[in-house]
């Protein structure tokens, strides 16, 4: 138990550091949202109006320490103020709108890539000498080194534009009303194929290699040989005796991968105009929408920390050797 407590306190401290950093970030950088707003308006705004607008958005200078305190307060009350980009809508609302999609995209692709990768990794290490084990992993290493965006663009171009097989944008067909209907779910699935597909393509190799390395270490262990000597079926040996142990080191990597997956989703969302966090993050950055950027970073940090914590729990659960 003290193990978990210690981890928890670590996460909390890390969280504090992260959000403090989050606070400092915009204040260290040049330019403010109003400038950006001006750039976007390309001169259609009267300069005399700028200060008024600045005030409207709440960008008035003040004591940094006071700002910090009120920022902290806003973080813990989840009241992050209005977004600049979508003024006067609350950042919380904006984020709440896109977060589910990003979670769906990032976690969905992570899970699919994980399952596929682990399966392929297990198999390719079991049949290491065969064609599969010799060629599939290097091939995947190759595929996954296309940058996210390029993979996404290529898929977008070929499947969306050329073959017209799959939709080009959005999370679902705007003509359909969201709800628990087959039509809606189908539309969501159809719209997710390309963005998820590109993320899976890029992500899968990591798991193949992680799993393969872990498996190969485990396959040499005595307990696997013993399981074979016991006359168990090779399926049981592969999954219960070898895979079960090989998944352990892979489990720690999952938490880490969540950060990467979110990063990947930023890129893919932009390409596929997927209404997720990444999409608005990038727009928010361009617009210097600090409240929005801060909120999204906050969410990312919390997500990664939570994922790490869950991974810790998972590890404790998976590995009985860790003291409880």
């Amino acid at each position, binding site marked *: 138990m003290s193990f978990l407590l210690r981890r928890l306190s670590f996460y909390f401290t890390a969280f504090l550091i992260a959000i403090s950093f989050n606070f400092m970030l915009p204040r260290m950088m040049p330019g403010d949202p109003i400038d950006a707003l001006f*750039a976007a308006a390309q001169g259609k705004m009267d300069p005399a109006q700028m200060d008024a*607008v600045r005030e409207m958005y709440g960008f008035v200078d003040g004591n940094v320490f006071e700002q910090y305190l009120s920022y902290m307060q806003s973080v813990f009350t989840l009241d992050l103020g209005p977004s600049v980009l979508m003024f*006067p*809508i609350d950042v919380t609302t904006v984020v709440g709108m896109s977060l589910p999609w990003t979670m769906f995209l990032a976690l969905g692709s992570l899970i699919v890539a994980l399952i596929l990768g682990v399966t392929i990794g297990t198999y390719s290490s079991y049949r290491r000498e065969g064609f599969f084990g010799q060629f599939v992993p290097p091939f995947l290493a190759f595929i996954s080194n296309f940058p996210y965006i390029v993979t996404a663009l290529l898929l977008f171009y070929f499947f969306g534009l050329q073959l017209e097989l799959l939709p080009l944008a959005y999370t679902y067909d705007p003509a359909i009303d969201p709800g628990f209907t087959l039509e809606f779910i189908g539309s969501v699935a159809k719209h997710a194929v390309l963005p998820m597909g590109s993320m899976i393509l890029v992500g899968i190799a990591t798991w193949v290699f992680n799993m393969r390395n872990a498996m190969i270490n485990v396959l040499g262990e005595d307990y696997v040989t013993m399981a074979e000597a016991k006359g168990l079926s090779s399926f049981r040996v592969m999954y219960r005796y070898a895979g079960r142990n090989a998944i352990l080191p892979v489990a720690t990597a999952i938490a880490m991968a969540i950060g990467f997956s979110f990063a990947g989703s930023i890129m893919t969302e932009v390409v596929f105009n997927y209404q997720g966090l990444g999409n608005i993050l990038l727009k928010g950055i361009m617009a210097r929408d600090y409240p929005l950027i801060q909120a999204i970073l906050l969410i990312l940090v919390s997500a990664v920390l939570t994922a790490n914590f869950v991974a810790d729990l998972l590890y404790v659960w998976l590995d009985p050797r860790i003291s409880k």
Partner: protein
Amino acid sequence: EIKQGGTLTVPIINTGFVENFNPYTSGGLFEGVLYEPLMVFNNMTGNVEYRLAESAEYSQDLKTITVKLRDGLSWSDGKALTAKDVAFSFTMTKATPAFDQKAIWTTGNLQSVTATDAKTIVFKLNNADSTFIWGLPKYHILPEHIWSKVADKDLPTFTNPNPVGSGPMTDIKYLKPQQMQLCRNANYYLPNRPYIDCITFRSYNDNSQVQPALMKGEIDWGSNFIADIDNTFVATDPKNNHYWYPANDAIHLYVNTKEAPFDDLNVRKALSMALDREEIVDIAAYGYPTANFNAAGIAELYGPYISKDVTAKYKDITKFNPEKAKQLLDAAGLKDLDGDGFRDMTDGKRVEFDINVVNGWTDWIQVVQMVTEYYEEIGIKANVKTVDWAVYDSGLKDSDYKMSINWSMVATNPIEAYQAYFSTSQIGKSWHAGHGVHSPEIDALIDSFGLTNDAQKQQAILDELQEFTAANLPFIPLFSNATWFQYSTAKLVGWPSKENPYVQPVWYDGGKRNLIINNLHLK
């Protein structure tokens, strides 16, 4: 015989739609759609298209404007739209400076707005200003019976749920993050208008996504840069896919004349002569914009106002003539002293400067890249400097640049552009005034424009300003931007076009799009 019905689909570049129908904070999404303007100044035809207003008149001393509304106006909820609403709409922005789009209150020229009767609104000004009226369409006419209920301090964050407007489309059918639809206003003041039933906004990230949407026929009206449009868009359906790119704002290279060697007029001339504008337009901008050979600071957008004499007189300056440019530079004493292929100042220091351009504005970056190549031909070392917007912005305003690419103002009348260019009061405030060419006479000349309502006198002033600009050359003209306008006649017709240029087809201008929406109908 005009058919009623049909839906217009347009792309909106944003991060998704949210429930905010406040016209001042929703990024211009509803101007001319949900909210009808008082009038539209049509720069394409030179006419004033009266919308809610029936007329607008200046008093003799140019200190009073009397606006008369049409008969029988009503809000979409059926309540009458009166002069009181209009007066309220203008007064409201006094308490909310952020809404004061043209700073009519903040800069103090507007004294009062009053509704003298149900149809008449009177604007009283402190000083005579014949240009004041051009700012009126920027203010949204809002129903007093709704907006007066909102406290002044809450106005900026007021999201105006269940909006009531006077525009052609006021019925919000649905709003999803990626798409929203507005349908016709049953109480629209024009009979049978709009012809179309609904307008659908689709959200896109950027041009690169609008392009495939256009190609696949998902949208009817594009206002975006589309690469290689003939092949990618028109070719997919030549009968219905069209584009028309009339000239828009003029793009110049701004030169800081306070610094050597740009303080030498001949050097500026040489830098202008070194450029092959046709080629730049052709390569860097796919040939869509029009090269600008007018050294007078304005371009095709202001066509009727351009002085032919001035253009002719200074046409050599804008003609591609590297040999002449070299001669001028030689004469200016900029010679290659150390034989590295680049010219040096008389003190032996190489002439080398950066051309500022905003990071990410790729069309301009390409233009500037080409410019540097041309300058290299005449032995001038120029570098492309891509900077963040904030840096670019303050550079122009604080005159902290040697050369910077920039656009001129799009306004109802070129005088506004000249105001921004030369008024001493604009130094440090506008991007256009940092070049260092100013004089009290010019200030006076510009100010005199607003004191008259006589078109001929005004033109004379403009001619003089053009002459002054061309003679001093603080801007090296490059080209007129294109007005990006792609349209599909697959479903709807009535678009403005080269053949029927009834308005400049700018989606992002509420008044102009209002005219177009009113003109579109089923095929």
